[in-house]
């Protein structure tokens, strides 16, 4: 059996006995067969020693058991890596950052504690998936919407603690949360916001409570184990409509995005909007360049040539699909208003999209893009072809046309400088996953091939550095790159990371919680890492 780092066999075996007493022996996993299920199914370290393998896993069913597990781990100084649903594929799956950590698997804590239709919120446990919460709401006939990321098998808690995103007005999942319950490294329970009032009546309605607002410190961190979280829901809107705006010239992207930004910041356009390029996508497909066609490399055709192809084939250089949610009259008026705003761009064209009223019929549900209406599904995996997984490089850039041009140029040049074709990477166009900025999503394929993965890891690291040189940083990252990414958030000699480390030492002096998460290491592991 693998031992946790810094723990001897006798202590580990004593601890395992105590874990079994706390949660029941069926819920402590130690055999290779069971523990291997916690490895990252999309590991960029396939067949390499660095591939993180846990020593064991423990799965409590309620918060009291979580407290006991954490206390035992603290006594024996056993590092534990917490997961909720553990479907963090593309960013590390269910695996810890460090081999030998035990996984604290909260999947069995799967109760929807409350869904309040009047105030439109939910309170859930960590093991509740988007599928579960959606089903619960449907079964009860409640008129509220959740927001789901592309894969519906993750959880509101796990996803939002990694600060993931979705598609409807509540797409910024961490921002949509209200109130947390957290078990600290010493086993103590803390409730944040109004939850600190023993008789709280507005835990899921007012976020801040009194005093410092600390919820953010439990996201992308290792300061506590979150056991409950509230989320704001969208009252089922009366209607929805979409419309696509298309422009012909390269430089038209600037006014296209400026107007998008205005419409989004004014809450006229809501939800995630992705900038697209029918022209570049067509070239990507016909040239076999794949997503690489979206970058500007020294070998790319000139803008004038591209515009000519666009004209000949009647393909817009850029477009974006706008989404409107609300009363039917209002969404129609909003689309009219958006068209008015965009009509200043010479040659702009508009295409009406879907116009819907809710609730949708069962048949309609089968034929709409489900994610746009908070309906969990796994359709997105279809874009992966017959591949063995991928990891995401996902920098945040400003929401402007100029920034998109710069990103195309900078990443294109970075590939040229490395002397590798960007062919394998799937570059997706910038999306407004989060308000006020764009995220650029680039999928790096994972292969069960050591050399390929090694090369891709090098490219990934280089892109992180190049992005940082231009003022762009990842919104989250795979466990394999957490140190690399934390390292570029280095303003004033890494003052922010030093602050995190100070907090870490104070709230988790034995360093048992998720060591290395987002580059935050406990004191005794900091030197070894450097």
């Amino acid at each position, binding site marked *: 059996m693998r031992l946790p780092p810094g723990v001897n066999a006798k202590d580990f075996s004593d601890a395992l006995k105590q874990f079994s007493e706390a949660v029941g022996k069926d*819920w402590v*996993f130690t055999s290779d*067969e*069971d523990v*291997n*299920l*916690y*490895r990252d*199914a*999309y590991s960029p370290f*396939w*067949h390499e020693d660095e591939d993180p393998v846990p020593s064991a*896993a423990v*799965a409590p069913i309620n918060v009291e058991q979580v407290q006991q597990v954490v206390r035992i781990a603290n006594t024996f100084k056993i590092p534990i890596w917490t997961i909720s649903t*553990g*479907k963090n*594929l593309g960013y590390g*799956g*269910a695996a810890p950052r460090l081999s030998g950590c035990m996984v604290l*698997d909260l*999947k*069995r804590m799967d109760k929807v504690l409350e869904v309040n239709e009047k105030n439109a919120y939910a309170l859930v446990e960590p*093991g509740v998936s988007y*599928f579960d919460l959606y089903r619960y709401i449907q079964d009860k006939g409640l008129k509220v919407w959740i927001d789901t990321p592309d894969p*519906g*098998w993750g959880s509101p808690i796990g996803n939002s603690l990694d600060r993931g995103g979705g598609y409807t007005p509540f797409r910024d999942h961490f921002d949509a949360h209200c109130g947390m319950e957290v078990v600290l490294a010493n086993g103590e329970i803390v409730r944040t916001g109004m939850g600190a009032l023993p008789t709280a009546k507005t835990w899921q309605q007012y976020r801040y409570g009194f005093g410092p607002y600390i919820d953010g410190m439990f996201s992308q961190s290792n300061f506590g184990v979150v056991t409950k979280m509230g989320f704001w829901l969208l009252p089922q809107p009366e209607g929805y409509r979409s419309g696509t705006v298309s422009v012909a010239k390269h430089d038209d992207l600037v006014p296209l995005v400026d107007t998008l930004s205005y419409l989004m910041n004014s809450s006229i356009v809501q939800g995630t909007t992705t900038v697209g390029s029918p022209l570049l996508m067509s070239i990507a497909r016909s040239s076999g360049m794949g997503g690489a066609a979206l970058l500007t490399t020294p070998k790319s055709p000139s803008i004038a040539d591209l515009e000519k192809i666009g004209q000949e084939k009647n393909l817009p250089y850029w477009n974006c699909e706008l989404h409107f949610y609300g009363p039917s009259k209002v969404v129609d008026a909003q689309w009219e208003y958006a068209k008015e705003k965009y009509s200043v761009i010479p040659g702009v064209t508009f295409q009406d999209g879907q116009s819907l009223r809710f609730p949708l019929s069962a048949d309609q549900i*089968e034929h709409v893009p489900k994610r746009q209406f908070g309906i*969990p*599904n*796994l*359709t*997105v*995996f*279809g874009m*992966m*072809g*017959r*591949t*063995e*997984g*991928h990891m995401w490089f996902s920098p945040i850039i400003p929401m402007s046309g100029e920034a998109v041009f710069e990103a195309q140029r900078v990443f294109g040049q970075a590939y040229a400088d490395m002397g590798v074709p960007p062919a394998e990477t799937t570059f997706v166009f910038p999306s407004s996953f989060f308000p006020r900025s764009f995220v650029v999503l680039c999928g790096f394929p994972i292969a*069960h*091939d050591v050399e390929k993965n090694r090369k891709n890891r090098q490219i990934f690291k280089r892109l992180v550095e190049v992005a940082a040189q231009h003022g762009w940083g990842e919104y989250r990252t795979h466990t394999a790159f957490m140190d690399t990414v934390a390292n570029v958030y280095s303003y004033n000699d890494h003052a922010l990371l030093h602050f995190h480390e100070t907090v870490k030492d104070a709230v988790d002096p034995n360093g048992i919680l998720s060591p290395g998460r987002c580059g935050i290491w406990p004191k005794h592991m900091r030197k070894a890492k450097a």
Partner: protein
Amino acid sequence: MRYARIFLLVALSVAFAAQAFAAPDESQLDRGHRVYQKWCYPCHGPGADKPGTASLAARGQKPAVLEDRTDLTPAAIKIFVRHGVLYMPTFRKTEISDADLDAIAAYLTRNNKK
């Protein structure tokens, strides 16, 4: 490489599949159906938006929907679920217990020739 290993395991497992097969009672099939709907259907159900089905169809597998198959063995199904294949990940026992997996296997092999 992992793919090759899985096929080896599948081939081996066919040998003892017959004896592993015990006539499941109705509630076992119901349970299998329920767990399948929850964990497998979103990828393996019918329709172009189901990526597992699309992938199997692209490979030339007929029928491509797992529920319509009569050639899968319980042992093979279990190996795929616990080892994964392509981007289908492994499933942990907190997600699908061994008993749930037995039920899925019984459900997906319900129409096999006995």
